[in-house]
C-alpha cells in the first residue's frame, strides 16, 4: 500500500547505512554512519526510537487497515444503522496507559543520551578549538597555539585507549549559524552573544563533510564544512606548519605589493605581512586548503584567479566584493597566493 511506502525509505535508509558503514556509505553525510562517540550515541538512541515507533506504526496501521476494509458499507446490507456505541472506559484507559508507559521508556533513554553527550568533561589530552561563524564561512582558532584557519577543520583521530577528543567553542560574528557534520555529532548553533560548545572524537581518519544548517543569509547554501581527521603525528605536523608565518618568496614580490596596496588587507590577514584584516578568512596558509569560498570551489590556480576577479561567479551574494583588478594585477596576486603554503 502507499502508506507502507512512507515508512519504508526511513527504515531502509537506516538499515542500509548500518550495513554499509564499514564500506562505501550511502552518503558522506549519513547520520546512520556514525564515526564519533556523540554520533554513535545519537545513532543508537535513534534506532531504539525507530524500533519503538516502527512497532507502534505497524500495530496501529494494521488496526486501521482492518477497520477501514472490514467495516465498509457492503452492497447487500440492509438500510438500518449499525449499533450505536458511545464509548468504553476500560478500552480508553488501556490506550491511555500503554502510551504513557512507552513515553516513559523513551524519555529515560533520551535523558541518558542527552546527559552523556552534553555533560562530557574534556580530558587532559583534548584539543580545543574556537569556531566562529561568519556570513558564509567558518573561522577556527586553535587554543594553546596561534593557529588561525578557515573552513577546513583539522583534528586528531581519537581512540578509546588514548582519547584525544576535540572540544569546539562556538561563536558567531554576525547572524545565527549551525555546525553540522552528521557523521561526527549532532548540530549545535552558533549564536552571537550566546557561546555554545560541542565535542567530537572521530575514530577513523579521513574527510568528513557537513555544512551550515541554520539559515544565515543569501549564501547559507555554500557555507560548507570539511573536517580532516588525521593521525596524531600528522595533526601535530599540520599544527606546527600552520603556526609559522607566511612563506616569503622574492619571485612574487609584485603580487604581494599589489595585495598589500589594495583593500584586500582590510579583511584578510597574512601573518608576516602588513595584511592584518580580520573580516575575511586568514590567508597565511591558503594553499594548504583544498577548497576556497567555504567549499564553493576547489582550490585550483584557475579557480583562485576567477574567485579574486569576481567571487560572485562562484557564490553570488557573498560579502567579498569584486575588486576591479586588471589582468596583470590578478596574475600577480594569484601567483602570490600560490606561494602561501
Amino acid at each position, binding site marked *: 500500500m502507499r502508506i507502507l511506502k*512512507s515508512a519504508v*525509505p*526511513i527504515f531502509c*535508509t537506516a538499515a542500509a547505512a548500518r550495513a554499509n558503514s564499514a564500506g562505501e556509505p550511502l552518503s558522506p553525510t*549519513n*547520520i546512520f554512519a556514525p564515526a564519533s562517540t556523540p554520533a554513535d550515541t*545519537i545513532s543508537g*538512541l*535513534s534506532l531504539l*526510537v*525507530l524500533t519503538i*515507533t516502527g512497532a*507502534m506504526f505497524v500495530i*496501529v*496501521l494494521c*488496526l*486501521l487497515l482492518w477497520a*477501514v476494509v472490514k*467495516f*465498509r*458499507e*457492503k452492497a447487500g*446490507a440492509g438500510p438500518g*444503522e*449499525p449499533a*450505536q456505541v*458511545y*464509548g468504553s472506559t476500560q478500552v*480508553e484507559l488501556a*490506550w*491511555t496507559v500503554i*502510551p*504513557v508507559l512507552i*513515553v516513559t521508556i523513551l*524519555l529515560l533513554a533520551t535523558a541518558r*543520551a*542527552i*546527559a552523556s*553527550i*552534553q555533560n562530557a568533561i574534556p580530558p587532559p589530552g583534548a584539543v580545543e578549538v574556537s569556531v566562529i561563524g561568519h556570513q558564509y564561512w567558518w573561522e577556527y582558532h586553535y587554543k594553546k597555539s596561534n593557529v588561525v584557519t578557515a573552513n577546513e577543520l583539522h583534528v586528531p583521530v581519537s581512540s578509546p585507549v588514548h582519547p584525544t577528543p576535540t572540544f569546539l567553542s562556538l561563536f558567531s560574528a554576525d547572524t545565527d549559524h*549551525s555546525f*553540522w557534520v552528521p557523521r561526527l*555529532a*549532532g*548540530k*549545535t548553533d552558533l*549564536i*552571537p*552573544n*550566546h557561546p*555554545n560548545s560541542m565535542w567530537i572524537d572521530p575514530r577513523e581518519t579521513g574527510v568528513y563533510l557537513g*555544512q551550515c544548517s*541554520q*539559515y*544565515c543569509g*543569501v*549564501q547559507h*547554501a*555554500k557555507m560548507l564544512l570539511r573536517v580532516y581527521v588525521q593521525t596524531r603525528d600528522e595533526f601535530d605536523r599540520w599544527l606546527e606548519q600552520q603556526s609559522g608565518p607566511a612563506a616569503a618568496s622574492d619571485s612574487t614580490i609584485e603580487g604581494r605589493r599589489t595585495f598589500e596596496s589594495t583593500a584586500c588587507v582590510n579583511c584578510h590577514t597574512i601573518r608576516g605581512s602588513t595584511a592584518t584584516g580580520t573580516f575575511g578568512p586568514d590567508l597565511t596558509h591558503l594553499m594548504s586548503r583544498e577548497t576556497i569560498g567555504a567549499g564553493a570551489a576547489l582550490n585550483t590556480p584557475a579557480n583562485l584567479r576567477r574567485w579574486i576577479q569576481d567571487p560572485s561567479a562562484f557564490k*553570488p551574494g557573498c560579502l567579498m566584493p569584486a575588486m576591479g583588478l586588471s589582468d596583470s594585477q590578478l596574475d600577480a596576486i594569484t601567483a602570490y597566493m600560490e606561494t602561501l603554503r
Partner: protein
Amino acid sequence: MSAARATVAVVRSERAPLVDTLHEWVTTVDHKRLGILYIIYALLFLAFGGIEAIIIRIQLIRPHNTFVSPQVFNRMFTMHGTTMIFFAAMPLVFGFANYLVPLMIGARDTAFPRLNAFSFWLTAFGGLLLYFSFLGGNGLYGAGNAPDVGWFAYAPLTSRTFSPGHSTDFWILALLLSGIGSMGTAINIAATVLCMRCPGMTLGKMPLLAWLNFTMAGLVILSMSPLTAAQLMLLVDRYLGGHFFDVQAGGSAVLWMHFFWIFGHPEVYVLAIPAFAFASEIIPVFSRKPIFGYPVMVAATLAIGFISMSVWAHHMFTVGMTSAGNTFFVLSTMAIAVPTGIKIFNWLATIWGGKVQYRTPMLFCVAFLFQFLIAGLTGIMLAAAPFDWQLSGSYFVVAHFHYVIVGGILFTIFGAFYYWFPKMSGRMYNEALGKVHFWLFTAGFHLTFDFMHVPGVLGMPRRIYTYEPGRGWDIWNLVITIGVLFQAVATLVFLGNLLWSKLWGKVAGSDPWDGWTLEWSTASPPPAYNFPSLPEVRSRRPLWDLKHPEDPDWHYE
C-alpha cells in the same frame, strides 16, 4: 439588511446589480458570508503559496541548478512559509469556524458580528501588505523585493544591518495586523461558544467541532500575544534604537526564538485542533456511529491545548540549552503524544463496527488518520532531543511538518470542503472529480513528503538554494519535485470542481449526508438568520433524536 437580498439570489431574473452585491459582501457582518470570504481569500493565498513551492522545487530538482538566484530562492521559501501559515491555513480554519460554529450551536450569528468583519479585513489587509512587498520591499534601495529572512525570522538577521530596506518591515507589519485580526476572531469564537448556544445545549452537549474550535480560540489568544509583542519589539529595534534582539548591544537572539516559538508551537495546534474537529464530525457521519468516547475526546483536546503551551523549546534543542532544560522539553513534548494517540484510537473505534461510506470527505479523513499517525511518530523521533540534534534544520523536519500540515491538516480541510460545500453553496460537488482530486493529491503527497524524509537523514539542511552532487540527495529531490506536480494538478481539479459545482451541481437539499448536527436542519444555503426558530436540543446529536424518536441519544448520554 442584506438578509432579504441573500435569499433572492436563487432567482436569476431578480438578481441585484453587481455593484450592490459586491457592496453587500464588503460591508457584511453575517458570519456565513465572512466565513466564505475567509475561505476564498485563503484559497487565493493557497495558490500564491503553491506557486512559490513549485518554484522552490524546480530549483532543487537537481544539484547546482540555476532556475532562480539565491536571493529569489530565499524570498520564495520565506513567502511560502509565511503565506501558507498566516494567510492560507489560518484563514481557512477561521473561515470554517466562522461559518460552522454558530450553525452547529444553534445561534443566529456570532457574539460580535462587527468585530468579526473587522478581524477579517485586518487579516485581508495584512496579506495584501505582505504581497505588496514584491513591489515596495526595497524602498529607496531599488526595485522589487520580498522578505527573505525565513518564516521564523531569527534575530539578528532581521536587524537593519542584515535586512536593509523595507521587506522585513512588510513582513513585521503584515503579521502584526493579521495577528490582531486573529485575536479578534478568536475572542469572537470563544464568546460565541460560551454565550450563544441554543436552549438545551450545555457544554457537554456541544458538537465536538464547537469544543475544539473553542480550544483553538483560547490557544490563539494565548499564543498570538507574544508574537505580536515580539513584532513590536522588533520594530522598536529597527526604528527606535531598541536593543531587545540587538546582540551587538547586549540584546539576545535567543529571546526572539523563545518569543517566536511560544507562538509557533501552539500555532501548530491552532491549525491541527480545527482539523481534528473536521475529522470528529465527518468520521462519525460516514461511519454511521456517534463519536467514540466524547468526554475523553474533549479532555484530550483540552490536554493538548494545555501541554502545547509548554513544548515550544523543542524547536530550540540545538541552541545550547542545559541538559536539564532539554530533558524537560523532551518530557513535555513526548507527553503530548498521549492525548494525540487517544484521539487517533477514538477515531479508529468510531469506524470500528460502523457501516463506512467512502464518499470524498471520508476518503480525505481516512487518509488523514494514516498520515497523522506517521506525522505523530516522526514527531516522537524529533522529540528525542539527541535525534533532533541530527534532524533539526534538515529536510527530515521539513517532511515532518508538511506531513502534519498537508497530510494532517490540509487533508481534513479538503474533507471539510466537500462535506460542507452542499451546505454553503446549496449544490452537490461532483463526486467523480472529488475522487480524482483525492487519489491524485494523495499520490503526489506521498511522492513528495515520504521521500523528503530521506535527504534529511542523509544530511541535507533545509533552506539551501542549491546542493553539492555526490551526497546521495539527487534522486530523492527529483522524486519530491515530481510529486509536487501531481499535487498542483490535483489542486486545479479541486478548484475546478468547486467552480463547476457551484454553477451546475445538483441541488443538495438541506441534509444530503443524513447528518446529526444542527447545521443540517436548516436550508442549504442557510438564510441570513440561520434558523426560522431557535432549535432546542436534548443530546449531542439533535437530528438523530429527531430521526429516531424510538431510540434517542439522550437515553444514553
